[in-house]
């Protein structure tokens, strides 16, 4: 097949910096080929895609050397608008790329730009919406779609131009587990009509059945080939900031170099006795503090209903639960299931339409958000919605100062919180030069500085690479150990499996599950209704007939099985 993208000796440094983000990339993508791109943040993944469609140097100027050919043309020379006829781009942020009044017009926009005749545009709208599972959504306003639907609409709007190459920059980051799966299924389908796909994805599990995975490290190609090889070598991947797929870890436990298929792995253990290790969340120590076992309730939600104006059904519908002091609870559910709406009641940002929310016995509807900030720290998903100060320390002083904390105590709190989140050395730096992971931790630190008992975190790991995600998870575990009550609103099932004791699951605003995490993973009905999927370790474990919450649980069980003499059944 002929090449759609050819990159030779590509080097690039953004204007105003000396650091070369790309340091000599060679890459060829052919029609009908799918390439997954992995790498730590700062490895040059996004920069590479931007070079492919001319956003670099058109939108992001800098020092570019080497050669880029998109369908035989230089995207830098023809400009983004013309290059986009050949290379469509889907961004991570699904809000900013949709701008039309309804989905039909959204899909039409690209085709209109290229002068496609009206009746042909109409045909493409029907076809492309059907492709991404949005047939019949023509008249919906994009803003009213769920996250997954928005991202699929973005793909449809790119497909309507009939590009030869579709570039996707972390398209599934903000999606619920089934939403991620649906997007990747669409990508597989696009390939069938000869379109090439290049997709940046942190979740390596999603890339295992792709033809090719490109691993970037420090602006250079570290590995390029079938995922069974380029995603093998779990230790190396982890060291380079890429999450190793569970299958790679399993392969390593067996001493195999290449990643096996699930079927091959299952066959390998045929007849052997693999035993589950005791699951963390079921050990008596973990659940001890929970309310059901008599701990003091710090959050009590009683028949909470919240209805936004002009909506036909409530976003939170008759939800009741309580959380004991010191619990670590996950709040789960599909995009648009009401999780964030519910969470915003815990610090009084939203008032109940009916029902009641109490924090430490106080009614949040009467207390007011500013006063509740002493007890409930709320970390929002996007740290850039709150950062405004010139230094890290000043940013952190904002909360405690609002609460009337004396200056010397503020300094102590800042020092302590910086220590916890590992930003002590950045104390006097400008927050805007920090990395995304550091800014996210700064947001946590500036909430910690108000010394709240309860921490509510909205998607604390979204958009972070493997290293930053691990650091954030370590931070949450640490805060929990120090006695904080933690509620994490999340789609990240790995976080839930490895850290949470209890899960609350919302579906269409209703609480459909409240219980231990392993119980949730066993409950197929709830999982389906809430568009959830157990983490990869659990799913692979089930194939092998065991239960494993974390990759460590799984590999330990495999090690044990392999170590036991063959044929011996104890």
């Amino acid at each position, binding site marked *: 097949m002929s090449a759609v993208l050819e990159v030779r000796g590509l080097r690039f440094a953004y204007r105003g910096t000396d650091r070369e983000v790309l340091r000599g990339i060679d890459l060829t993508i052919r029609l009908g080929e799918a390439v997954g791109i992995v790498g730590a943040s700062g490895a040059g993944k996004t920069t590479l895609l931007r070079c492919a*469609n001319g*956003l670099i140097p*058109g*939108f992001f100027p800098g020092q570019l050397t080497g050669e880029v050919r998109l369908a035989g043309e230089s995207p830098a020379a023809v*400009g*983004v*608008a*013309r290059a*986009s*006829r050949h290379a*469509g781009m889907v*961004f991570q942020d699904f*809000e*900013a*790329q949709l*701008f*039309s*009044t*309804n989905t*039909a*017009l959204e899909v*039409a*926009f*690209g*085709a*209109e*730009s*290229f*002068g*496609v005749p*009206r009746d042909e*545009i*109409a045909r493409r*709208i029907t076809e492309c919406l059907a492709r991404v599972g949005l047939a019949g959504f023509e*008249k919906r*306003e994009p*803003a*009213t779609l769920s996250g997954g639907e928005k991202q699929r609409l973005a793909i449809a*709007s*790119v497909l309507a131009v009939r590009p030869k190459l579709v570039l996707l920059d972390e398209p599934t980051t903000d999606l619920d587990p089934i939403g991620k799966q649906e997007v990747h299924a669409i990508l597989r389908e696009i390939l069938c009509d000869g379109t090439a796909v290049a997709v940046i994805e942190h979740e390596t599990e999603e890339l295992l059945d792709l033809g090719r995975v490109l691993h970037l490290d420090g602006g250079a190609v570290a590995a390029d080939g079938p995922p069974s090889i380029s995603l093998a070598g779990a230790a190396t991947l982890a060291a380079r900031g890429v999450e190793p797929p569970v299958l790679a870890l399993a392969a390593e436990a067996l001493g195999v170099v290449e990643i096996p298929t699930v079927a091959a792995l299952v066959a390998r253990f045929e007849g052997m006795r693999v035993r589950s290790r005791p699951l963390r969340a079921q050990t008596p120590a973990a659940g001890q503090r929970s309310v059901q076992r008599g701990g003091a309730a710090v959050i009590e939600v009683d028949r909470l209903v919240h209805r936004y104006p*002009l909506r036909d059904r409530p976003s939170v519908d008759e939800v009741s639960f309580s959380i004991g002091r010191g619990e670590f609870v996950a709040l789960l559910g599909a995009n648009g299931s009401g999780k964030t709406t519910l969470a915003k009641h815990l*610090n009084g*940002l939203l008032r109940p339409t009916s029902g009641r929310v109490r924090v430490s016995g106080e009614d949040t509807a009467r207390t007011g*958000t*500013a006063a509740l*900030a002493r007890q409930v*720290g709320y970390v*929002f998903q*996007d740290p*850039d*919605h*709150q*950062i*405004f100060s010139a230094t890290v320390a000043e940013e952190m002083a*904002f*909360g405690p100062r*609002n*609460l009337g904390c004396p200056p010397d105590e503020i300094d102590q709190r800042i020092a302590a919180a910086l220590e916890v989140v590992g930003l002590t050395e950045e104390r006097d730096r400008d927050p805007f030069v920090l990395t995304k992971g550091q800014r996210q931790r700064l947001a946590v630190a*500036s909430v910690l500085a*108000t010394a709240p008992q309860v921490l509510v975190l909205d998607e604390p790991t979204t958009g972070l690479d493997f290293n930053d995600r691990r650091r954030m998870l370590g931070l949450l575990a640490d805060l929990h150990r120090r006695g904080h009550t933690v509620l994490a609103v999340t789609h990240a099932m790995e976080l839930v499996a490895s850290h949470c004791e209890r899960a609350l699951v919302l579906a269409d605003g209703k609480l459909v599950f409240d219980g231990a995490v392993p119980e949730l993973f066993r409950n197929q009905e709830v999982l389906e209704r809430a568009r959830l999927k157990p983490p990869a370790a659990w799913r692979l474990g089930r194939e092998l007939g065991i239960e494993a919450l974390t990759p460590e649980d799984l590999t330990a069980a495999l090690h044990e099985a392999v170590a036991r003499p063959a044929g011996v059944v104890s």
Partner: protein
Amino acid sequence: MKLFLYVDRESVVHRLHPVTKIVALPLLFGAALRLDDLAPLVVAALVVLVVAAASRSLDAVAGMGSLLVTLFVATTLVWGLFDPARGLVHGHADRAGVEHAAALGLRLSAMVALGIVFLATTRVEDFAYGLRSLGLPYRVAFALTLAFRLVPTFVASGRAVAEAQRARGLDLDHGGPVSRMRRYIPLLVPMFLTAVRRADRLAAALETRGFGSGEGRTDLIEHRFAARDVAAVALVALLVVLAWRGGALVSVEGIRAASDGAMVWLRGSLAHLRGER
């Protein structure tokens, strides 16, 4: 969350050619600005309500009710108190002054309500289409309507910023004006930065969908002038003339203004028809 005022419904006003609506709006605004007595302005407000009802967008207007009431009350208060000729602070306390202030308040609210009806019945794409039919280049027409696409997203991110800072104990309800002003900095900095970033991302998204590719652009939407457009323009012309009241019917000025309006519309439709061929 709904980000546009547009309400997707079938109504005669929805079906009007965008050019008709774009021309009618300033003409009706002009007519309203001619009026400054309470009685005719009450009639004008009723006309706006009738138009809203005919376009099935009464709920959109009601949805902005608090804005309309605030505008009415604020305008009435400001004029009632500070009008140099009739204001209370200048020692005039009579019924005429209060009536005049209320009339001006009503006028502003009625005009804003009419604008809401326009936006509730006209998609931004139709708006851009109308501006292009009037002869504006596509880029200019798009840029003018871009504000309507951006404002709602700015409002949404502004809300997110306010929530994030309130969650850290920011209290905007207490204290004197100076300290209150200072407390807006934590809101303004992130709001400004997110707005800039959003606009930037939107620009990138537009270009990656071929905006400004230099190739002849086609339109999915299509509008044709119909009898209802003629009727609508006749109605608008009648209202404009009525705004000049009785005597103005025969005044040269009134007739010239009405014929000017008609000419603008006619030119627009001709330009459009030429474009069709």
